[in-house]
């Protein structure tokens, strides 16, 4: 006995949930399969930073497109999604980094993203607990934060409201040639199978160019007002998130509760979920360098998660050439929370034969090399989400 669908989405993280919602809205008969909790993988481990990023032109296009979709949705998100338009402050430690602030402002302006340059004094007023010697910052007011697992659950609820069916908790045994086999023997037939399993997508398609990139996050007790914006260091020139080695960068986020989320770390080749104390120590030292007041705060929880990293830091969105029924929506590295909505729309447009609102080509699973922005941060690239 086989059930027939237009689209079967594998994975109900925030990307899968967004794909299911967009496909259902488009009138496609959609099913979703999830083996664990909704938004329980990288979605729950991430920070929830909705951020426009400019590591490359395609990254800028997808993050901007997605950020606008989040803005349009923000009034309808439930309170537990904790959407806050707190903006991002890209903090420049010295004059060299202030030049990058100005470059970044020009790039963002080219896409109509309004930003404001803060000098040292203005930055102290905006964030009194930052180390006072900071040179300044770029304020991106349209960036926001949210609580990803609840946002994912809401996206999925919407999908179900529009007719999608959820299979959970069910494990996918195999997915190919338009057939998805679940544990317990259920067989689903689909015109399109959307693979949105994050780093675990390689379990179904071992050839995918994906690597697990481990991250650590810390959350503090409640210190209302200590941090007001999402703070990210611009110091990639010195503390770059290299593509090959372990790295940490300063990233702090105010939660609605007054708690502060502290990141970030990046590690390849660390496949266990345990906290790496050397990395944690380096990450917190980096954070204290920017926010000395953190030293007197209590951390209440530390956890890890795995980003699905691609070699060029762009997601894989599009048909998988080896099997025309497989359509990928994975490889979002540290930007999956932001780019989930854009990905959902691209997937729904492509599968229903509509024109996509931004070009899909840069994200196709088989693609040529891309150009990264000149004074490029290998790094800042998705510290978040």
């Amino acid at each position, binding site marked *: 006995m086989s059930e027939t669908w237009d689209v079967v989405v594998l994975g109900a993280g925030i990307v899968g949930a967004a794909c299911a919602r967009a496909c259902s809205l488009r009138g496609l008969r959609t099913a979703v399969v999830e083996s664990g909790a909704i938004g329980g993988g990288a979605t729950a481990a991430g920070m929830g930073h909705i951020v426009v990023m400019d590591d490359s032109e395609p990254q800028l296009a997808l993050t901007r497109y997605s950020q606008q979709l989040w803005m349009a949705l923000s009034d309808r998100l439930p309170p537990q999604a904790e959407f806050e338009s707190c903006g991002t402050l890209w903090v420049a430690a010295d004059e060299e980094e202030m030049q990058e602030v100005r470059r970044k402002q020009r790039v963002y302006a080219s896409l109509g993203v309004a930003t404001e340059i803060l000098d040292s004094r203005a930055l102290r007023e905006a964030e009194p607990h930052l180390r006072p010697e900071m040179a300044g910052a770029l304020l991106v007011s349209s960036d926001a934060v949210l609580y990803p697992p609840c946002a994912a659950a809401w996206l999925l609820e919407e999908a179900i409201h529009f007719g999608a069916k959820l299979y959970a908790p069910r494990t996918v045994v195999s997915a190919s040639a338009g057939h998805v086999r679940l544990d317990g023997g259920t067989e689903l037939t689909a015109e399109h199978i959307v693979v949105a399993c994050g780093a675990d997508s390689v379990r179904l398609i071992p050839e995918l160019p994906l690597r697990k990139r481990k991250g650590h996050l810390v959350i503090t*007790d*409640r*210190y209302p007002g200590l941090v007001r914006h999402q703070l990210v260091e611009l110091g990639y020139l010195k503390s770059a998130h290299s593509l090959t080695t372990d790295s940490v960068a300063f990233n702090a986020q105010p939660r609605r*509760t007054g708690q502060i989320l502290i990141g970030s770390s990046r590690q390849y080749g660390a496949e266990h979920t345990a906290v790496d104390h050397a990395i944690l120590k380096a990450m917190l030292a980096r954070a204290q360098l920017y926010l000395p007041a953190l030293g*007197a*705060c*209590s951390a209440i929880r530390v956890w890890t998660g795995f980003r699905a990293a691609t070699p060029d830091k762009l997601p894989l969105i599009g048909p998988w050439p080896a099997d025309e029924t497989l359509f990928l929506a994975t490889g979002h590295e540290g930007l999956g929370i932001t780019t989930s909505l854009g990905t959902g729309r691209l997937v729904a447009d492509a599968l229903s034969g509509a024109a996509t609102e931004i070009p899909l080509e840069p994200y196709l699973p088989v693609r040529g090399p891309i150009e990264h922005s000149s004074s490029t941060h290998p790094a800042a690239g998705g510290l978040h989400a």
Partner: protein
Amino acid sequence: MPDPARSITLTVNGTMVRVQPGTTVAAAILIAGGYTRTSVSGEPRAPLCGMGICFECRASIGGKLHQRSCQILCTQGMDVRTP
């Protein structure tokens, strides 16, 4: 026996409290008639374990947030605040 000559005064939410040396801040908060903290859902909380494990006794002491009041002894002039 309480010795009035050796007593310490501190304030809990602005109210003067007089205690004997060796009194914990948690005890001073209870003497002042208050509770230590408010949960995320708005419920009052008071010390449960009394030995620094449960974190229910957190209060602002001398301007520092989230101090475990059961582990800190009162000092003269201390400023204690609970939400």
